[in-house]
Every structure is written in C-alpha cells, then in structure tokens.
C-alpha cells in the first residue's frame, strides 16, 4: 500500500485501478452531473432496474432527479463525433436496488464506447470486462449473451412477439418446467421445444455452447451472429487466459439492447458485479446515430470478498510542557511515513 492508497477504502482503490486500466485503452475520464432532468428517466424508465427516482424541483421550477443510472447521462451528454467516443467514469447512482425497499447510493465505475461496434471493439470490451473482474479477484466468471441472437432463436421457435416478456423472463430465471408448460400451451413443435430448452440450460464456454446450438437447423442470419460471437470470443481469449461463458439468462431489455450483453460475477458476492451490453436502440431513442456499448462495475458489495484493510500503527507523542518540541517531533516522524498524533501520554495503538 502506498502513501496515497493508505488513505483510501478498498472500493476507492479498486475504482482508481479500474480507471487506470480503462485509460490505457484510450478511455478518457468523464464527469457527469449528479442531477439530470427527470424527463430523461421517465422517457426511458424500462432502461432502469427500478423506475423509482429521487426527484426535486430546481429553482427554475424544473423537475430534476438524482441520477439513477450513468449510461443514460453519458449518452445524452456526449456528442456525435467523427471519432468514436470512449469515456470512463466513477460515479454514484441513486436508486432502489432490485428487491430493495429504500434508495441507496451505489458507486459504479464503468466505460461507454459510442461508435462503430466492429468485432475488434466488441472483443476489446470483453477483454476489459474480464480484466476489470480480475482486478477485483482471480475468482471471477464472465457470462455473455447476445440479444440479437436471442431474438433470432425465439423467431425460430415460433414465439409470438406478445409472448416475449414471459419467455424472456423464463430464460432469465432458467425456469425449464415453466417453459415446458408454456410450449405445451402454445403447441410449439417438439424440435423447437428442444431449442427453447437448450436456451434455458445452456451455460458454458462460448465455442462449446455454440456447437450445441449448431445441432439445430438455424437460419443464415443466426449462424452469422454465432460466427461473429465466436470470433469475438477467440480474439479476447487469444490475449487473456480467462474463459467466456455463453448463458442466455444474461438478458437486457429488448427496447434498449440489441447485441452483446455481459454479466460478471466474483466468488463470494451473491449478485453480478459487472453488467453491460450493446445499446444501439437506446442511442436511437435519444436521437443519436450509430452504435454504443458499455458496462459498469458495482463496487458497493466489494467488502464481501476484499481482504480487510490492515489497521495502521499509531504513535502518540505527548505534548507535555513543550508543545513546540512535540509538534516538531511528530512532524519529523510523519515525514518518515509513520502515523502520529499528539496526546497526553506516550503510547501506541491502531487506527
């Protein structure tokens, strides 16, 4: 621990390390306002994990919100440029966590890329996601999925658009028996039922998982996405030892996400610590051109797996009858890196 990190909490240290990682990849540090016009969130409430937002009326009468999400603010406040926009941030978001009953300040560090999302960009995002998780712990897992592919597979299985919410929810929960009952109700043919079942149970290394899907007769457009996904995983795996898992339970809202989705886990933390995805439809809803992808790392539960910060030895210099000498002595010791306070009698302890 160096002189600067000695004064930081573990989440702050990790946040600084993550930003340093992102900067190496050309992401510039970006600061968003703590407040944003409420209308931004009302118009995009499905993008949020919980639609409840902390609001207040500004002095000009405008309804404002403490931002419940960072991506929306970044997308709204950056401009279309010739070159891709690459920004990283460490910000607090204010929202009710899933299943919670009160607002929390949630610290998140993440990146947003707005520009052409070709295979190399997507592979680099996956690489950064893995390196982000590795920064927190060697015991991590990164699951990916692809909303475009999920949509294609649902079409192959003859799922009607009005059934998408129910079917996606069952895939998200890996509710196999629920899906069987649904397929029975909708008279879905046997082979398509098997594909739906595979979408639920599939969870494993990308190439092996795609191989299982290829046993089904899939349209060219689906095979093309699968091939892209394989290339992306290959590029990332060529330079990083981690394994990427394909798992369709990693889902985003179809109104906002259309491509790759990510969900990262750390052993010992019960919920995902990294969440992200490609959100071209969100850009379009906010009147922006092109494509965008990003992820956020949630550091609010990091204490569950991080080593405890060592307590610091504290020395007490008695002020006594000669404060000048005590002041000077304390200062001299601090210059050597020790932690010193002035007190009544000489002793040492921890803080």
């Amino acid at each position: 621990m160096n002189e600067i990190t000695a004064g930081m909490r573990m989440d702050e240290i990790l946040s600084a390390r993550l930003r340093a990682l992102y900067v190496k990849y050309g992401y510039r540090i970006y600061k968003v306002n703590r407040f944003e016009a409420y209308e931004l969130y009302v118009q995009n409430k499905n993008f949020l994990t919980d639609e409840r937002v902390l609001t207040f009326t500004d002095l000009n009468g405008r309804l404002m919100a403490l931002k419940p999400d960072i991506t929306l603010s970044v997308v709204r406040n950056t401009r279309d440029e010739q070159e891709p926009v690459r920004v990283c941030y460490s910000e607090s978001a204010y929202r009710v966590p899933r299943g919670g009953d009160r607002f929390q300040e949630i610290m998140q560090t993440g990146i947003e890329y707005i520009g052409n999302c070709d295979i190399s960009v997507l592979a680099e995002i996956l690489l950064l996601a893995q390196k982000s998780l590795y920064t927190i712990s060697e015991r991590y897992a990164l699951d990916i999925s692809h909303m475009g592919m999920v949509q294609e597979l649902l079409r192959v299985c003859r799922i009607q658009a009005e059934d998408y919410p129910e079917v996606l929810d069952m895939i998200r929960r890996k509710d196999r028996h629920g899906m069987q009952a649904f397929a029975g109700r909708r008279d879905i043919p046997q082979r398509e039922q098997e594909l739906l079942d595979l979408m639920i149970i599939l969870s494993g290394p990308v190439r092996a998982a795609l191989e299982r899907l290829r046993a089904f007769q899939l349209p060219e457009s689906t095979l093309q996405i699968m091939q892209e996904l394989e290339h992306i995983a290959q590029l990332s795996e060529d330079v990083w030892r981690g394994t990427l898992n394909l798992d369709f339970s990693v889902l985003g809202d179809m109104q906002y996400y259309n491509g790759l989705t990510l969900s990262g886990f750390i052993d010992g933390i019960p919920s995902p610590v990294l969440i992200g995805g490609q959100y071209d439809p969100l850009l379009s809803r906010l009147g922006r051109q092109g494509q965008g992808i990003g992820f956020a790392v949630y550091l609010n539960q990091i204490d569950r797996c991080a080593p405890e910060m060592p307590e610091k030895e504290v020395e007490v210099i008695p002020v006594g009858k000669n404060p000048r000498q005590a002041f000077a002595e304390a200062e001299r010791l601090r210059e050597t890196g020790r932690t010193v306070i002035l007190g009544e009698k000489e002793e040492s302890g921890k803080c």
Partner: protein
Amino acid sequence: MLRIALPKGRLGEKAYKALAMAGYPCPELLEDNRRLIFENPDAGVQYFLVKPSDVSVYVEHGAADAGIVGKDILLEYEPDVYELFDLHMGKCRMCVAGPNAFRDTHTRALRVATKFPHIASRYFEAQSREIEIIHLNGSIELAPLVGLSDVIVDIVETGTTLRENGLSVLETVVPVSARFIANRASFKFKGDEIRHVLDGLKHCLPDAG
C-alpha cells in the same frame, strides 16, 4: 460445501427426504431438536432451516447457494434467483375465494384481503379490475366473514377451511408447488455441485420436472 436453505415444517421435511435420497443425507435434521444449521461434511452439504417465506431471501443474498421454496413466494417477492426444478411437492392453488353467495357487481373497488398483495394486484390488474388491498398476515378466511373484505386471495390446498367457513373458490390464480432455486453467482462457482443435486433429485423424483 453446498449450503441449502430448507423451509421449516412439512414441506421442508419432505424436501429433505428427497435430498437425502439424492445423496445429501444429514439425519440429525429429522431429530427432535431446535438447531437451525445441520451439516454433513462427508456429503458436502449444509442445511439451514428457515421460515418458508425467507428461503428465497437467504438464496438471493447468497447466504445459501440453493433452497426449496413454494412458487407462491417466488411470485410474490420475485427474487433474482434461478428457478431450476419443480419438485411437484406441496401442490396447491393460489385462488380468489369468497362467500358462497358472492357476486362481483363491479360498482366499486373490490376489497381483497390477502397475504400476497403483489400476486393479487397483478392478477386483478390484468383484468383491469380496480381493487383495494387489505394486507393480512393470517386467518385470511375471516376477512370476508366479518365484512373486512369482499374476497380473499390465498393458498388453497384441500378447500376444507374454506368450506367450513362458508367460502368457496371463485377463480384459480395460479397452481403452486415447491421449486428448487439457486443463487445466480453460486451457479457460476458451484455449478457442478448444484447440477449434481439437481440430477439426484430428478432421479429420486421421476414424476417431477
């Protein structure tokens, strides 16, 4: 070591017996004592006995890797967990019930007494029926008898309690049975162990699934 949360009571005992047959025994669990944690290191399992409605809380928050919980609890609290297997145990129905002579006149908001406000709200919302929820914690059947509510939304197993109180089932909301659930992160790091339990359960309960 796989940590499994079991609901206290009859369902928990039944589920434990299936788990023991599946290769995860811990005989002390059936002894007459007040312990809450039971462990069998040889089988690699630790059981927690918790209030049925708390099983999903233990699993969602990662204190348990897996658990056995009723579908009613999953529908009411919508925990963010994997719902991996229907054990076809503890089968019952979530129903709307009311006095035998009850007819909904649609002239005002329907007063609904229930332990399951979320399930009740969603059910009537889907029918565009305006309701007033009266949240109770027990003896739900009493509410329409003393004029506290028009109807109730509750679990019905045999219907005996309803019949003995002059009530009958008006509509079935959803069938309910026990589910084997798992924490999302545990599924990543203890996936093989969880799948092993699942395979054992499928083998012991061939009619479930």
